[in-house]
């Protein structure tokens, strides 16, 4: 709390990004964990909550006659524009937020104060939900080719790897240690995914320290061991996910890539994915396009193209498709690496796994996938997503890109995923929110040292509890596209990659479809379930009645009383199923309905215990604003949203409104 210079400012205006006419007046609060804007309007009492850890930049703009504007950009792509009456207050808020948004100690992060009121046992259960040993068992490991190795116990060989790694049986500790010495940051080849059907596997590592001519016998043996673990194939692919030029430049620094002449039976392949700096700039450029005020179609498309973002997404996807095809169709094992093997390698391994195995397309499986390829293999969450104050050059939207790849696949294969878009958006939100301990630190080692599991809660348990919100109504596990490998088209399929406004313009609800097919179908499915239950109840009653009519009068009348009671409840139930009532029913349906003005304590109490915003939507304002529209698809109040700002938002209209 010592960083909060100014806990409360009144008469602050929150501007609507699309229209300055829609500004609302309210009070701004700073708490230890959140920025809160509470509207004055007593009817709506709308509140906007923003976690400090979501703040990516704060910009103080030139003071105008109306006050001092403050622009807050968030990592979940929310942009908040405030106008604070007094310059001095604005400065205090600015200085406070600069500090609050850049914590220096892990202990300052929200997850160490967040308390979802679960007991110790529930918390421990939550951390057990995703178990990687179980996952490798599911893949069929250990088996006669692969085993678990304790070579990295106490993180002695590689401090960014997990304690438990899966390696070929023929790879002795000597080979592993030797190989690790020949790899950047000692990230030796280890198993990421094993394809039961044909023994082909996906392994991952960092680049070899080959320089211009160096060799390492153990590393060569390691790759040989991987090949031998797949008896059906006489070679393996080594996929370097960097552009060739980058890889060659690394040779001068004593790093580089595998020389096909030194390794027997490998086929070497470059698949050019750009580095984290290019990706960071690309996202920056794309977000500038998203922020344009009433851009023309050309501004938008030109800017999107110029950002290169979709080109990068396609590159990652193409690499994933290449690996998945090698494994599923050719039956060849693949070793994937980039430089350090924790960014592009994680992207490509996880995209390939997702294409190969329908399990990863389920709610639970997707959690497992992120745990496997990202969390356990030392993706540097803290550095990449700037959880603690650090080098801004380390920040890059690496996992964001993976999440987008999943969304692009969902668009192409609408029935193949058990989860919906909201699931992805909420995961992205929590990677930055630091509300749960899952994505803390840069490695498993650091998390253990910090006792993360004892001190924080797991996101997966939270998402699992509310999984009904994240289901894709079109998913059917018996569909052809659900089973087996997904085969996205490699080329020419440029047009299949689309701008994801649901993510990057997530908080501009006015830009999104006004009626959600997903929510509508989920509501129908819920109603269907109720109908099924009612059908059963009615069936029983009918049977009872028929039986009772056969019985003698006295018994019958008794039974009838009972069935009448039953009937009462059933008909109440059925009332809710008539179309008119149904819309009311629906209003309360999606449990993500933004009720952050919590019923129980509508007064704003600024203590952490009351912050229940574990649902990303709770920390937003736009949801409430569009709540009616969002939930409306079946209700009469639906659709009648106000004209979107853009419908007539140009000089002409301004003239005619004046």
């Amino acid at each position: 709390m010592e960083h909060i210079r100014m806990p409360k400012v009144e008469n602050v205006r929150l501007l609507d990004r699309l229209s300055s006419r829609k500004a609302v007046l309210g009070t701004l609060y700073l708490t230890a964990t959140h920025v809160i804007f509470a509207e004055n309007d007593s009817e709506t009492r709308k509140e906007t909550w923003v976690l400090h850890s979501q703040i990516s930049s704060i910009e103080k703009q030139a003071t105008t006659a109306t006050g001092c504007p403050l622009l807050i950009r968030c990592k979940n792509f929310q942009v908040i524009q405030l106008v604070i009456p007094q310059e001095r207050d604005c400065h205090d808020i600015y200085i406070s937020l600069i500090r609050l948004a850049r914590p220096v100690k892990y202990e300052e992060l929200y997850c160490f104060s967040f308390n979802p009121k679960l007991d110790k046992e529930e918390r421990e259960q939550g951390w057990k939900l995703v178990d990687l040993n179980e996952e490798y068992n599911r893949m069929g490991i250990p088996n006669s080719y692969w085993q678990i190795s304790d070579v990295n116990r106490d993180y002695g060989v590689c401090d960014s790897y997990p304690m438990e790694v899966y390696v070929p049986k023929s790879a002795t500790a000597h080979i592993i240690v030797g190989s690790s010495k020949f790899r950047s940051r000692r990230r030796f080849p280890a198993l990421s995914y094993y394809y039961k059907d044909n023994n082909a596997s996906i392994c991952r590592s960092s680049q070899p320290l080959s320089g211009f001519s160096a060799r390492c016998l153990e590393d060569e043996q390691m790759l040989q061991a991987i090949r031998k673990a797949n008896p059906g194939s006489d070679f393996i692919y080594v996929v370097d996910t960097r552009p060739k030029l980058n890889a060659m430049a690394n040779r001068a620094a004593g790093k580089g890539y595998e020389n096909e002449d030194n390794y027997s039976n490998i086929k070497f392949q470059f698949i050019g994915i750009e580095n984290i700096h290019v990706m960071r700039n690309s996202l920056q450029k794309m977000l500038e396009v998203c922020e344009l005020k009433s851009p023309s179609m050309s501004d938008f498309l030109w800017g999107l193209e110029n950002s290169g973002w979709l080109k990068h997404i396609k590159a990652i996807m193409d690499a994933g498709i290449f690996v998945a095809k090698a494994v599923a169709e050719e039956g060849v094992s693949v070793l994937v690496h980039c430089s350090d093997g924790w960014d592009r390698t994680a992207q490509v391994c996880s995209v390939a796994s997702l294409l190969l195995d329908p399990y990863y397309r389920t709610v639970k499986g997707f959690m497992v996938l992120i745990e496997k390829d990202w969390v356990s293999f030392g993706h540097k969450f803290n550095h990449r997503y700037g959880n603690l104050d650090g080098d801004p050059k380390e920040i890059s939207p690496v996992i964001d890109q993976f999440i987008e790849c999943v969304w692009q696949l969902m668009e192409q294969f609408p029935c193949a995923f058990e989860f919906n878009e909201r699931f992805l958006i909420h995961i992205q939100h929590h990677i930055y929110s630091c509300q749960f301990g899952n994505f803390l630190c840069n490695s498993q080692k650091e998390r253990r040292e910090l006792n993360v599991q004892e001190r924080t809660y797991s996101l997966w348990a939270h998402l699992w509890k509310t999984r009904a919100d994240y289901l894709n109504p079109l998913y059917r596990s018996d569909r052809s596209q659900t089973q087996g490998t997904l085969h996205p088209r490699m080329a020419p399929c440029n047009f299949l990659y689309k701008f994801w406004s649901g993510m990057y313009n997530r908080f501009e609800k006015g830009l999104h479809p006004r009626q959600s097919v997903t929510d509508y179908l989920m509501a129908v499915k819920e109603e269907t379930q109720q109908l099924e239950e009612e059908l059963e109840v009615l069936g029983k009653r009918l049977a009872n009645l028929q039986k009772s009519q056969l019985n003698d009068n006295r018994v019958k009348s008794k039974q009838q009383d009972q069935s009448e009671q039953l009937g009462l409840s059933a008909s109440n139930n059925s009332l809710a199923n008539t179309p008119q009532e149904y819309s009311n029913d629906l209003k309360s349906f999606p449990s993500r309905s933004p009720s952050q003005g919590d019923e129980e304590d509508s007064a704003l109490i600024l203590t952490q215990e009351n912050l229940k915003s574990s649902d990303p939507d709770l920390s937003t304002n736009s949801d409430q604003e569009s709540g009616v529209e969002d939930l409306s698809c079946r209700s009469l109040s639906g659709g009648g949203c106000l004209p979107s700002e853009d419908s007539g938002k140009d000089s002409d209209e301004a003239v005619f409104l004046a």
Partner: protein
Amino acid sequence: MEFAELIKTPRADNVVLHRPFYLAVEGTLCLTGHHLIFSSRRQDNAEELWLLHSNIDSIEKRFVGSLGTIIIKCKDLRIIQLDIPGMEECLNIASSIEALSTLDSVTLMYPFFYRPMFEITEDGWRAFLPHQEFELLSSVTDEWRLSCINKDFSVCPSYPPVVTVPKSIDDEALRKVALFRHGSRFPVLSYYHQKNGMVMMRSSQPLTGTNGRRCKEDEKLINATLRPGKRGYIIDTRSLNVAQQARAKGGGFEQEAHYPQWRRIHKCIERFNILQESLIKLVEACNDQSHNMDRWLSKLEASNWLTHIKEILTAACLAAQCIDREGASVLVHGTEGTDSTLQVTSLAQIILDPRCRTIHGFESLVVREWLQAGHPFQQRCAQSAYSNSKQKWEAPVFLLFLDCVWQILRQFPCSFEFNEQFLIMLFEHAYASQFGTFLGNNENERSKLKLPQKTMSLWSWVNRSEELSKFQNPLFEANSLVIWPSVAPQSLQLWEGVFLRWNRPSKFLDEAHEEMINIIKYNKELQAKVNALRRQLAEMETDDRMQENL
């Protein structure tokens, strides 16, 4: 039969058909007067492809040795390739197709020969008569009348015989107004907004010329639609610059001085060859086989197609906003009032009027605002994206309208009774059809061609329950409200159902659609079952009680 002369080789064997996403098939090619028919020989899975000659947009020939290849590009944007052995056969077939697909006489077109194989339950030619529309109108207001001034098309050749005009304006005045408007298209009623009594009218540009001619009757006519003390808006679908230039050619726009109660807004919507080129570029981009992501986006951008969509939708939203939010009446016109004007008036109605979002209502809209309003379909839809001949009157005006409807449908997926397939079907039939509905350029030409007597109406076919079921949106729930679409670039998308239809696999999307239908169907079945059971129980319980009382 004169077609026989054009068919030099009526049949070729061992022809191989290539299509994207299908294996090549060998079979027999036959040419008839109106169709190209390909039938595969395979016994196990006989397959037939019927293509209307009028659907063929362009044809290319190539030879490798004696094997000829014909590439046929269709108006519905599909491309097929036929390998025909024998150079002479191939040349003959190509020239026959060329001749048959470019017949210059309307009466030789297929609709005049087509005999329906289905039973006609309702004659589509009589399904949407102006009198029926007017009856609905007169049940809510008596300020309008039907005028038969154009009954022999003598006043305005592109108007229907009957039009709706303000009651206070007599036919004599209309005659004078007609002289003051381009192509005699005097202002007529397009839409009456029941909620507040505001109206939308449409016309062509006024012929003010350089010396600012005026016409008292014209002023009186459009003022007659205003409530006392109220103002109206004139939406000119040209930029101010273009409108000013039009004066040199005798056209122009309403001067403030003569129309003090009206405020003029200029919204630039492109026309003719600019739109046609845009379509050609867009389709070229969609068919580009290169692997380069950047090129795709810049080609999409350079086509300007989505820019046109945005402009048209914005103008329509503005018109709707004036009527519903500002409580003002609106007059829409461009130059001729047969293209951009109709895009704006018809889209505004979709936004404002829930009736236009039903199947029957949308058909009625197409009939009123496009066919009867004199959109020159035959000229505009003579060629599509692959044509080489660049006639200046060809333009995808109607396709742009359908695309805009699709954009709104995408944003309000539960508010339309029809689905995307319905819009695609209308696109196809506007360009090539066995039905006479889209033949001719206006009602005058249609009546001269005696289309209602000699051809079948598209609506007669569509409105049978077998066909309708294909076009119904399973998510539809009547929404009585005005629906305001977003026109931000992030909200507008390429209409894949039309432009990528032949270059992307649709299997997975079809499956998703099927699943959607199943979910809803199952829900409805259960609902029916529950209701039946409930009724049965209620009856049994009453019986029971009566017995007890006895």
